[in-house]
């Protein structure tokens, strides 16, 4: 990390204001980026990071304020305009078209550069695509391959290659690349690879803006860090002066401590085994899975993406049928054909992709809470509206869900509150076993703490929990016991009591 602040100023934004109808999303935001620099942006959800990036890339226009690029005034009309000025962005959501080939995706939106009379010269496209891929060290992929034949990590690398292409096209001009949560779907190795690429880019004199919820990553890769809160920049510091705690303080205005995971509240599991898997397997994904889950226990499952941990969750909750082995719940052998069967046996999953799998946006809060226990709220399959409402009020109070009324639509709630609704639903179902698949994903720091408290409380009630943490730290911090998976097999198991938490290094060594 060279001291790059002395380099030439590449991009600067001054006094950026952005109003949406009634909300003031950005309040006079400042941002300077120098050539060869990696700048980290951190802040809670809704702090304004994404809005700022959208303005820089030209997807939205600022209400007021000025931007310069290469010292010239910069006012992009659309992303293509931004690209022409040497600014490219990797979006948070996957932006590849899976039915098209890698090469077609790489030059998507730039086809005209390869066209004569509107007809695209595909051989030329693929030749250049190969070069682009080589530059990000994934030259083993045939650019003629369709994206839907590739795994997620590779797709992410292709996205980055796509943006890198912008820098290539810029030639001598220095570029700015925006990365919005690029690591959320990457495994640790892939993240490392990404960081290598980012450094490469920076070494050439280009600049990178890096946005991530994972402070450790930001601290690792960036040269300088901007901290945003409520639509305004609350500070800028050199990475060498920063630490996670300091950043947290700036972001939320309070200190986090070792009590973050409320380890002192960790309860002792009971003796009774509530779930037992023996030799469970799903062809080609995982195999020989033996585990026992006790009442009141939080069992953490660690592993990289693709280790099979996600699929274990799916099999346990009934979403997927195992191809071998057996599952015993409360002493009874079960064979689920769908999650509804699982629910009947008292097992329910809180899914990872909240928006796609967790909530029904078009329904109200009360109906979302009642999703999993409609039968209990009804007589002769007639649902009691009063009971639905009463239950919702109970949980809104209990969970401190911020909503105007139980009839408010789900889409109106913030991410953290939506997640609380999902938790309420799970608790209301009175299931004894909960599978928490990344329960804090995409939730801001404040809400995270509340969720941790909640998980502790649930466990204390004697319910059993299987936890897939958003970070390794979280997984170890929360669990009573941790199992480690690699390539579809359990490679290790650690006791994780209050005073004998395993070290991350030990766990990682079994994951990789």
């Amino acid at each position, binding site marked *: 990390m060279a001291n790059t602040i002395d380099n030439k100023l590449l991009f600067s934004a001054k006094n950026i204001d952005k109003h949406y109808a009634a909300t003031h999303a950005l309040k006079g935001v400042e941002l300077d980026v120098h050539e060869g620099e990696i700048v980290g942006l951190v802040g809670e959800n809704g702090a304004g990071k994404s809005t700022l990036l959208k303005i820089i890339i030209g997807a939205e226009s600022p209400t007021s304020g000025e931007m310069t690029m290469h010292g010239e005034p910069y006012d992009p009309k659309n992303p293509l305009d931004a690209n022409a000025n040497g600014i490219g962005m990797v979006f948070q959501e996957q932006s590849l078209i*899976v039915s*098209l080939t890698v090469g077609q995706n790489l030059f998507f*939106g730039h086809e005209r550069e390869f066209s004569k009379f509107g007809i695209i010269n595909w051989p030329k496209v693929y030749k250049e695509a190969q070069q682009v891929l080589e530059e990000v060290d994934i030259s083993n992929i045939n650019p003629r391959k369709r994206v839907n034949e590739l795994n997620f990590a590779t797709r992410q690398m292709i996205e980055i290659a796509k943006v890198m292409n912008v820098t290539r096209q810029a030639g001598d001009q220095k570029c700015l690349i925006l990365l919005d949560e690029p690591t959320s779907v990457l495994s640790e190795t892939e993240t490392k690879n990404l960081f290598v690429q980012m450094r490469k880019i920076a070494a050439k004199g280009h600049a990178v803006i890096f946005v991530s919820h994972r402070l450790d990553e930001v601290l690792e890769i960036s040269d300088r860090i901007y901290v945003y809160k409520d639509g305004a920049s609350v500070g800028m510091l050199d990475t060498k002066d920063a630490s996670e705690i300091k950043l947290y303080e700036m972001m939320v205005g309070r200190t986090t401590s070792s009590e973050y995971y409320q380890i002192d509240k960790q309860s002792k599991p009971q003796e009774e085994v509530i779930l037992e898997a023996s030799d469970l397997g799903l*062809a080609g994904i995982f195999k020989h899975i033996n585990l026992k889950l006790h009442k009141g226990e939080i069992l953490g499952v660690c592993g990289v993406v693709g280790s099979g941990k996600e699929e274990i969750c799916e099999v346990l909750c009934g979403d997927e049928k195992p191809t071998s082995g057996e599952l015993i719940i409360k002493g009874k052998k079960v064979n689920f054909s769908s999650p509804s069967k699982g629910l009947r046996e008292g097992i329910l999953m809180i899914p990872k992709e909240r928006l796609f799998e967790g909530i029904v946006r078009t329904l109200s809060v009360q109906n979302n809470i009642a999703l999993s226990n409609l039968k209990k709220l009804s007589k002769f399959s007639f649902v009691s509206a009063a009971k639905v409402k009463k239950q919702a009020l109970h949980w809104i109070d209990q969970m401190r869900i911020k909503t105007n009324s139980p009839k408010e639509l789900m889409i109106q709630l913030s991410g953290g509150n939506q997640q609380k609704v999902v938790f309420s639903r799970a608790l209301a179902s009175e299931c004894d076993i909960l599978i928490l698949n990344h329960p804090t994903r995409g939730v801001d720091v404040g809400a995270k703490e509340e969720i941790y408290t909640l998980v502790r409380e649930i466990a204390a009630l004697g319910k059993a929990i299987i936890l897939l943490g958003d970070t390794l730290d979280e997984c170890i911090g929360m669990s009573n016991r941790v199992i480690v998976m690699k390539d579809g097999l359990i490679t*290790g198991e650690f006791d994780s009591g209050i005073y004998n938490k395993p070290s991350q290094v030990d766990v990682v060594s079994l994951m990789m």
Partner: protein
Amino acid sequence: MAIRNSGNMSITEEFAAKIKRDNQKERIMKLAPVIVLFALILIFSIVCGKDFASLKNLVAVLNQLAIPLLVAIGLTFVIMIGGIDLSINGTVGMAASLVGIFVMNNRFTQFNLGIGGILIGILSSVLVGFLAGLIHVYLRIPSFMVTFAFMYVCKGIGLLSYSGEPPTILDPVLAELPKKSFIGIPFITWMALIVLGICILIQEYTAFGRYIYAVGTDESILSAVGVSVKKVKVKVFTLAGLCFGIAGALAAIRLGQGQVNVGEGLMFPAQAAVVVGGTSLAGGKGGVINTIVGVLVMRVLSNGLVLMGVNPYIRTGIEGIIILVAVALTVARGAKVISK
């Protein structure tokens, strides 16, 4: 802290085997329409013998292919962006009626515009496609409803245009066209094949073609690179209108008469043909080439059933079952798959 190494190899092998199986399945699924087509050809060849498997019948099938093919191609683009077009019956009928009126005919001598008349017919349909696209995109009305309304509007325009007595085309060139053929394939089919070629070119070799796939997959991708989704959609509906218009014009020439009825009964078979070919109704998957297979399946099926002399009452039923089977073969299964 037991580390289990045993079976580590086998899971990778298993995975490889699974991927292989999946790929195989996918390949079979991709080929399913072709398999269905060949199965049908085989069955009819056996049952009907020479009546079916003859050059003459092949030409007849090709001859009948033109209009369903054109209509299905236009529809393919619309379905690829996840939309639907119900206006087909109307637009084709309208284009055919207007072509009949604006060329030399036995009723409206004052409107003889020759080739210009054909252009008017086609343009009317293009215009309707364009309008439908505009209304769909800018008023945010589902394409289903917009095109449903336009079906009535176009049918009405067609009806109104000749007020009950369809004009017979007397233009000597146009009257001769349906009889002309080149290497055994009728002229009208050639026209359709040329349009087909152009559409394949558009789909595979132009930026617009790529954007169609993108719109069907995820609209946000396009705005991210600064391409207007709205424009792409309007263009797609306009292109579909062009295909329907050409289909209408060719239908009028083929029948030697401009009547609104030629559009009748084209829409549902076209939808079936597009989906049977393997284009996904959800959008983003498939394409014009798939549609060729789909249209062939439908054409061969009805041709074969006619030759077999199957009771027409049962024929539609058999067609329905074949559609179900053909599509069931091409869709992904599994408890987790969501199909709407």
